[in-house]
């Protein structure tokens, strides 16, 4: 902020000019940047994870290197079944999440629709709830004896098993992760060159055909980026199946085996390796799908596609769809809100009474949690977008040896269960002391921020990559042929054009880091250093603390929602600056 100048010229300039200089990778140092990032990934991801995963390749009897454990994995019917269940749940979650995200993204980017910013922000909120809190709230609303089913039973004598077994996992996961698709798809739709659409219309295409043949294919990078994230995330996610007590999936199997007291079964680690490998394969598949297609558009046509005004009938339909979807995806938050104001809520459609006491209890104990969360998630997300932009640029625009490796390595973090990363960090960093502070690095609060940074880097990276894919190389070549240096080109052309994607990445990383629990629960070494999700976890471990935990959950949602809306406003303002036609 201190770097911000106040000259009139700067006020009109794009976001990149207002960024401090060090945010922009030095062109002459692209190789250096690549090397530094590689070192960081090796030190903060590869080494700690390897420390844990090596067990998968050891003979449990002798400690000798072996692949026998992997043979065992495929011979075990429970694991084969778990693998299939995980695959099925992930694929179905992508389908359901698409059904939720596509209408929201399409309606808000393509039509004049009041409250678009609000909907985009609201649509993002499901992501910012710790999975265990989401599951608690969803049980209260959709569970076997939740609000909906109790009302159905009383009035119609039926009940619907929304939350039973794999169905429950698919429902919770789709509601939780669809924002990945929404946010990436919306960014892509906004970036589509209006002239493409106009050309198609001139040639007589319209309606669904226009959408199917022109608009959606052009938005593919964003959609695939989002869908791949959802798929991998659901495939690796632990919290939701565990909280719904679904055990026959891969991630819970790994977790249950790693964290059981006293059991040293290598299969948990074998499953972790398989999760990582499968996630990398899925990403590779999504890259293959995108290969050989050019999605870049030359002109940034004044903020994307033409927006149409809806006819009255369409308007009713559009509002109906949007309100219904928002109601479903925000139901966990409604449940949480009721819980936070409720007294006792037991086997009833609504709480028995309402009170503010939960907020009082929460506030007395949680100020530190909130401050810590903003600090950790802020550090993590800032580093994520810097590194994410750098990696995206190196991968797409340079020929540096091993650049794909950077991408795969950073993305592999998605596949590392948080508890594995946490144990790995303890194992790797506990013996290293922080200079001046005379305590182990593993119990210094900075390590929590770094763990969050590594865990959320893939989100920022996907968003930045999708954004960069839509920036035509011709624009850079033009700038360079006009005499701009590489550095100046990146600073003045590439990054401004990527702003939307970068901000999307920041918001995703920040919001999800703010509610992360699985890695941090291993790393928190003092309650003064604990983040918010840990605080909610503490509250929720006692019968009397549920309301206070819910109140803290609401605070988490509000904190992150403010961040989200603020960045949406920045995106919109930036877009207006661009479309006012000054610099670009």
């Amino acid at each position, binding site marked *: 902020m201190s770097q911000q100048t106040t000259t009139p010229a700067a006020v009109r300039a794009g976001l990149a000019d207002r960024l401090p200089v060090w945010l922009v990778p030095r062109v002459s140092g692209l190789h250096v940047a690549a090397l530094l990032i590689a070192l960081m990934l090796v030190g903060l991801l590869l080494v700690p994870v390897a420390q844990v995963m090596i067990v998968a390749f050891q003979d449990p009897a002798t400690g000798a290197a072996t692949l026998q454990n992997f043979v065992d994995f495929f011979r075990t019917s429970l694991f084969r079944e778990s693998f299939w269940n995980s695959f099925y749940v992930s694929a179905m979650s992508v389908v359901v999440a698409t059904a939720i995200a596509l209408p929201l993204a399409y309606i808000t980017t393509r039509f004049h629709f009041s409250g678009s910013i609000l909907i985009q922000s609201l649509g993002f909120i499901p992501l910012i709830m710790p999975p265990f809190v989401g599951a608690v709230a969803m049980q209260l609303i959709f569970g076997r004896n939740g609000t909906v089913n109790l009302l159905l039973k009383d009035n119609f004598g039926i009940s619907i098993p929304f939350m039973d077994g794999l169905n429950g996992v698919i429902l919770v996961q789709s509601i939780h992760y669809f924002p990945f698709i929404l946010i990436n798809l919306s960014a892509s739709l906004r970036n589509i060159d209006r002239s493409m659409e106009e050309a198609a219309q001139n040639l007589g295409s319209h309606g669904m055909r226009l959408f199917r043949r022109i608009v959606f294919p052009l938005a593919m990078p964003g959609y695939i980026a989002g869908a791949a994230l959802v798929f991998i995330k659901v495939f690796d996610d632990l919290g939701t199946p565990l909280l719904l007590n679904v055990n026959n999936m891969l991630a819970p199997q790994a977790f249950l085996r790693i964290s059981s007291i006293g059991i040293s079964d290598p299969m948990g680690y074998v499953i972790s390796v398989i999760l990582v490998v499968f996630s990398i394969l899925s990403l590779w598949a999504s890259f293959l799908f995108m290969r050989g297609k050019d999605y870049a558009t030359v002109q940034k046509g004044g903020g994307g596609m033409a927006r149409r005004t809806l006819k009255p009938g369409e308007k009713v339909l559009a509002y109906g769809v949007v309100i219904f979807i928002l109601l479903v995806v925000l139901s966990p938050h409604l449940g949480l809100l009721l819980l936070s104001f409720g007294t006792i809520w037991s086997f009833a459609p609504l709480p028995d009474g309402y009170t503010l006491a939960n907020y009082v209890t929460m506030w007395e104990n949680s100020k530190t949690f909130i401050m810590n969360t903003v600090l950790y998630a802020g550090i993590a997300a800032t580093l994520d977008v810097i590194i994410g932009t750098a990696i995206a640029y190196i991968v797409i625009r340079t020929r540096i040896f091993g650049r794909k490796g950077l991408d795969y390595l950073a993305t592999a973090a998605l596949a590392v269960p948080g508890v594995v990363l946490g*144990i790995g960090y303890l194992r790797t960093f506990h013996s290293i002391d922080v200079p001046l502070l005379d305590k182990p690095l593993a119990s210094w609060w900075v390590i929590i921020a770094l763990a969050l940074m590594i865990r959320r880097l893939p989100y920022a990276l996907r968003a930045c990559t999708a954004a960069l894919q839509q920036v035509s190389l011709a624009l850079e070549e033009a700038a360079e042929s006009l005499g701009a240096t590489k550095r100046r080109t990146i600073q003045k052309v590439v990054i401004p054009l990527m702003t939307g994607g970068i901000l999307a990445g920041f918001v995703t990383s920040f919001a999800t880091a703010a509610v992360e629990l699985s890695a941090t629960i291993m790393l928190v070494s003092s309650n003064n250093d604990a983040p918010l999700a840990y605080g909610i976890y503490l509250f929720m471990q*006692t019968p009397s603390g549920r309301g206070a935990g819910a109140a803290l959950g609401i605070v988490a949602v509000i904190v992150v929602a403010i961040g989200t809306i603020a960045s949406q406003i920045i995106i919109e303002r930036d877009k207006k600056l661009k479309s006012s036609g000054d610099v670009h």
Partner: protein
Amino acid sequence: MRRNILSSVAALALAASPAMAAGTITVITSFPDSMTGPIEAAFEAAHPDHDLEILNKKTSAGVKYIQEIAGDNTADIFWASAPDAFEVLKNDGMLAAVDIASEGIPEKIGAYPLNDPDGYYFGFAGAGYGIMWNERYLKANDLEPAREWSDLAKPVYHGHVGMSAPSRSGTTHLTVETLLQGDGWDQGWAQWKRIAGNFSTVTERSFGVPDGVNTGNFGLGIVIDFFGFSSRASGFPVDFAYPTVTALVPANIGVVKNAPNEAGAVTFIEYLLTPEGQAVLLDPAIMRLPINPATYAMAPEGFPNPFEDATIGATVEFDVETSGARYNIVNSMFDVMITYRLDDLRTAVGAIQSAEGAYAKSGNAEARAMIDEAWALIDANPIDEAQSLDPEFAAIFTKKRTKADDEVGERQAEVEQKWDSFVVENYRKATELAQQAAGM
């Protein structure tokens, strides 16, 4: 941010002045804030020169944490329910043997010895397993509360029961083991599988069970007593009862080896065993059984007193040796036969229950034989008691070797796969038989 910097600076200052550092006692605990809070407040009031730093972790995560930081230990105390977590730490050499001065503390609670005979950890409160139920749920479903374990196996409770898995929760492990010791290996497992046939779910955390009963997600739960008492004290429409076959077990506390503040740790443990320290356990949010019999004079009316009421937890002579010898085998068997195959088991038991219902009307002898055969398939165990106590077999699950060239024949994954095919096939056959019997 400021607070973090401040705490970092404070840590620096503390490190520079050892006299002040002696006051901080770092405690790793699985107990919730609502329990540690009042105890911390009472302790710090009684010993103003000491500062308790509470670090909350799940029992399993706490054990892992202490193992991982052992090289440069920063924790003073491990404080949790499950005696077996302490056994694991003790066997790994992570605990220190210390002398604790206390008065009026008996040797045993129920039939369970209170303290580790080698002085590595100490009981500070008692707890017993029992059945908790949601009154609104039972009323809506026209059910009576179950009072004994065997009640939970009745067909009326099909789909209404919840429990945690012994591999997830040390205290749940004790319940499972108690019934195995009380009823015998075969009878005990048969009982568990018939109860599990009525399960709505097997929860991942031990707190998941009281939570499920409190919200009314399922009607009855197998829980440790203080979850029942404290849920009730918080206002939920729930209640709790001890069955006849149950064991009272101590919740424990121990000093971590190479503790930075061992003297402070001992002070805290000694305080916990004083009458004042014990009285805090009766706080409505805690509700654990004090181990100092004198403290019960201050207990609210209706609060159980195991030192006077001989029926609580006296039936089973809990054998710690037996429990320890097959600890991991019991966990693994429960997961393979129940947790991971709950759907198959529930279907099979449900089918047999309806066949029983049909038989009650028809009285068909052939159907009876098929039903008995189906029950026998459910009851069958992949290993017998002798094998469960065979140390060589148990070594497959612990993988602890004194020498690098020690060899173990089978791997855990192989054994579990064998068990899995065994139970899946049995449950399938039992379902078929029951369906045939029901049609007769």
